[in-house]
């Protein structure tokens, strides 16, 4: 069942979307939530069932089989699976192949376990394997577009890259979302000519990500060098392969995180052009923060220009959008004396230390550069009154966007919810209520595990985010963080099992250590940052997960280790992990920033410590309570 459902759920996610939702449309918060729940629930419920059930089976033969051992084995599998996927499968195979390969040990183990009933088991294993194989064969079928054809598909470690062809048009899609096509001359012209027309001479250009037609526009300025930085090698490969961008003289293609590249480079540019999607993720937000703008300014010549764009508007600047551009404008103000906002389908930010010329077609005419879109449409679409309307809309009181307090992400959330005329408040209120009801029914030990689960996953999110800020988006090391956060659980559980006899005192000690560790993270982030080696962050992750792993068998022993206790402690740990990841990534970091997110997790653990202390106070003399 597990094997079959793992394939079926991926098929369901891909195929049912177009049955339940209108083809080609994006979906709001609650439908997404419901869809995700119902497509994933069968598999996750079964996985959740198998773990304690396996223990009950084992205890049929060995009644005193320790619950902690199955937790250790589960963690061993988690770590192995995580490492296998992060470091091997993601580089080599597509999702259905990964599922097939990852499930082979399960099929093999099932055959071994039930070898006495060989005929039935082998038949079942054969069917399961056939379904896995069927998934592999249907991989491309599930990705075919309704219009045109799928002519390229590959899975990179950063996501799925696909190219659709419809007649003569090639469209590049990343994770199913159309990024751009080869016929979008407007965007290429605006992104290139708005900044470059400002310069009297253009020698060195840095282009952080690119889209169709950009190189052809850049070539009109005959620069000496164009450093084109693209994080995902698959994207640039596809862009060149299908002629979405051309190879031009002086072009250097660099496969690296753009911010990491700038940090390491000492080159000075005449223009830095950022062509990234909206800052909906922490990774993208890093290119719209004070630290990044400072970095960019340091790599610009005195006459240089920085430009980027965010989603624009046609005829009315809605409030979340106004807040977004105000936040960006106010952040840029510290580094650039002159900032011009140009309206349109995208709002362009042209930033310089020298004055910015508004009449782009006139500048292009001076340079004898011809265009198809800008020259013909600029004066009608970007009238003086529209430009003034936009630039006057900036609210100087809007807070700036920073790495550790990503205001833009929060505003993107607001904008997204406004688009679907919905609000997440109901969801979080319901979730909080459910948590409160859950707290009424759980024991103190379970609450400790709940808070520890939340802390581990919350701190993992924080570390990943901090890591991205300081070291750039390096897939290998992100995978390492995830693996390290899993790897600590196993030795922790092993040690906890050895010392579980010390009971609640150890829970208190480990809770205290978790608080200290999280507290130490604040000065590490504030003062250490990227000056500290990567291993410091990895060691932190290992430490947190070690303590989490340690607490599980101790808490389980305190609960007696019976079947019911095992189920409930597993549940507490997993529910805590789910709540921790959700609240940290969706509420704490976007709304309160990293430091307050850390503080929030510490507060949760302090509550846990208090809960432990109250219980501890009842069973041992008060003088020892000073813990």
């Amino acid at each position, binding site marked *: 069942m597990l094997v079959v459902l793992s394939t079926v759920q991926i098929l369901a996610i891909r195929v049912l979307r177009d049955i339940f939702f209108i083809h080609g449309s994006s979906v709001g918060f609650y439908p997404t939530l419901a869809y995700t729940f119902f497509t994933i629930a069968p598999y996750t419920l079964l996985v959740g069932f198998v773990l304690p059930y396996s223990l009950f089976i084992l205890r049929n033969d060995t009644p005193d089989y320790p619950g902690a051992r199955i937790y250790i084995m589960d963690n061993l599998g988690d770590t192995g699976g995580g490492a296998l996927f992060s470091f091997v499968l993601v580089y080599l195979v597509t999702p259905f192949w990964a599922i097939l390969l990852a499930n082979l040990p399960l099929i093999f183990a099932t055959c071994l376990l039930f070898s006495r009933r060989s005929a039935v088991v082998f038949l079942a294993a054969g069917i399961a394997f056939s379904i896995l194989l069927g998934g592999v064969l249907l991989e491309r079928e599930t990705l075919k577009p309704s219009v045109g054809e799928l002519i390229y598909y590959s899975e990179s470690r950063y996501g799925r890259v696909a190219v659709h062809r419809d007649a003569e048009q090639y469209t590049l899609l990343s994770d199913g*979302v159309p990024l751009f096509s080869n016929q*979008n001359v407007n965007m290429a012209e605006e992104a290139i000519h708005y900044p470059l027309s400002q310069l009297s001479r253009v020698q060195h250009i840095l282009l952080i990500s690119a889209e169709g037609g950009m190189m052809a526009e850049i070539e009109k300025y005959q620069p000496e060098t164009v450093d084109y930085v693209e994080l995902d090698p698959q994207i640039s490969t596809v862009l060149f392969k299908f002629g979405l961008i051309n190879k031009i003289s002086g072009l250097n293609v660099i496969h690296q995180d753009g911010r990491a590249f700038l940090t390491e480079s000492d080159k000075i540019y005449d223009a830095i052009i950022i062509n990234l999607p909206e800052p909906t993720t922490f990774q993208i937000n890093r290119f719209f923060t004070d630290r990044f703008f400072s970095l960019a300014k340091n790599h610009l010549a005195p006459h240089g220009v920085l430009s980027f764009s965010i989603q624009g508007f046609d005829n009315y600047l809605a409030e979340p959008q106004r807040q977004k551009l105000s936040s960006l404008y106010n952040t840029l103000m510290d580094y650039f004396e002159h900032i011009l906002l140009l309206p349109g389908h995208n709002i362009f930010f042209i930033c310089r230390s020298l004055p910015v010329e508004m009449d782009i077609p006139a500048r292009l005419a001076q340079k004898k550069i011809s265009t198809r879109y800008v020259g013909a449409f600029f004066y009608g679409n970007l009238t003086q009154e529209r430009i003034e309307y936009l630039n006057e809309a900036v609210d100087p009181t809007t807070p700036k966007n920073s790495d550790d307090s990503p205001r833009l992400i929060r505003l993107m959330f607001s904008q997204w919810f406004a688009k679907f005329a919905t609000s997440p408040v109901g969801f979080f209120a319901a979730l909080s209520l459910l948590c409160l009801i859950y707290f009424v029914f759980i024991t103190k030990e379970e609450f400790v595990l709940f808070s520890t689960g939340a802390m581990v996953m919350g701190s993992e999110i924080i570390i990943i985010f901090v890591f991205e800020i300081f070291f750039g988006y390096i897939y290998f090391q992100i995978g390492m963080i995830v693996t390290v956060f899993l790897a600590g659980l196993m030795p922790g559980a092993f040690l906890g099992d050895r010392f579980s006899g010390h009971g609640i005192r150890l829970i208190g000690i480990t809770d205290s250590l978790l608080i200290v560790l999280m507290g130490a993270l604040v000065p590490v982030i504030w003062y250490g940052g990227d000056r500290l080696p990567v291993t410091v962050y990895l060691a932190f992750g290992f430490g947190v997960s070690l303590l989490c792993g340690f607490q599980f068998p101790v808490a389980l022993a305190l609960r007696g280790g019976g079947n019911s206790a095992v189920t409930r402690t597993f549940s507490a740990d997993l529910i805590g992990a789910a709540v921790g990841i959700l609240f940290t990534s969706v509420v704490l970091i976007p709304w309160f920033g990293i430091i307050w997110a850390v503080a929030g997790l510490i507060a949760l653990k302090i509550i846990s410590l208090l809960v432990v202390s109250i219980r501890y106070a009842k069973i041992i003399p008060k003088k020892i309570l000073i813990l």
Partner: protein
Amino acid sequence: MQKLSRRKFLYCSAGLLSVACPAQAFWPFGEKESHASGPVDIRGRVFKNDAPQTLWKWSREGFHYKKIEGGKVVCGICPNRCILAPGDRSVCRSRVNMNGTLYSLAYGNPCSVNTDPIEKKPLYHFKPKSKTFSVATTGCNFRCLNCQNWEISQVKPHEIRHIELFPKNAVQAAQDAGGKSIAYTYSEPTTFFEYMLDTARLAREKGLANLWISNGYINKKPLVELCKVLDGANVNLKSFSDAIYRKLNGGRLQPVLNTFKTLHELKIHFEITNLVVPGYVDDPEMVKEMCRWILDNLGPDHPLHFLRFFPRYKLDRLPPTPVSALERFREIAMAEGIHYVYLGNVPNHKGNHTYCHQCGKLLIERQGYYIPTYNLDGNRCRFCNTIIPGVWQSKT
């Protein structure tokens, strides 16, 4: 083996087919029909008990409505014909029932005011090169998934920033801006009918033209009243399929077709736009059918614009329309007999220019909003003297 009788064979075959046919609908791979996915109708609903406690300054009693029992009113502006109990708000979000009287909350409070080139509407046969003063308040009677103005069309009047511009001031502002016309546009002007009509009457008195840029979802009575002061229109024929209208736009096709007929009967200059949405509105057979309807009911002289789709608002998982699809549709429409067929959202394309339907020579060359070539003399082709349909600048 028992021999199968003919009757049994037919029963079994019918049984198998009845199972196989629906099963095919659930086979998710192969050719996907965009129309078959998701909800079939996204039409809006009345907002119960959503009216404000008191009217604000920018309110006016509705022009076309009926009072019915229980203090309810029936709005007569558009085919939604919202039945509003006291305290209810209409589908378009702009009209409320306050104690048994229908009020528009979108009167003199535009949220978007710009001076645009007339070609941007698009109106290619109405005083080329002129500027039009464009106004919009909030509201729309549709729910288009690809709306490019959703920030104003899908919100209530009090939810956004607006300026105060009552009809008299709007006309003055249009004159100050150097506009030759006032365009009621961006959102759906039918939903601010009272504001539009009062402004249009004053504008006509001052010699300004009135332009209605609309989805055409309006009842005949208010439309006829509007046409008394209307000089031109661009009406969006979103597709030629009622199913697609319901699925992508939250409206119905027939009322829009009725609008075209009324405009034609009343001899209002209008142009038709058709946004070619990949997977939905890109069926050549549907385009042929649409063109035949236009020819049969409206004749060949109303310009038809095929617009290129770009991902917008909620319909953002589709690629843009390939330019060749638009070119093919232009060829189909011209082959069917429509005289003036244009491509929109495709810069620098010959489909942007106007060619005389008689002699085929270039009359108006459009480079974006520039018109470097203009070969009309009054309303006639400079080469063959044929009358070109439209509203043109006076003879020079």
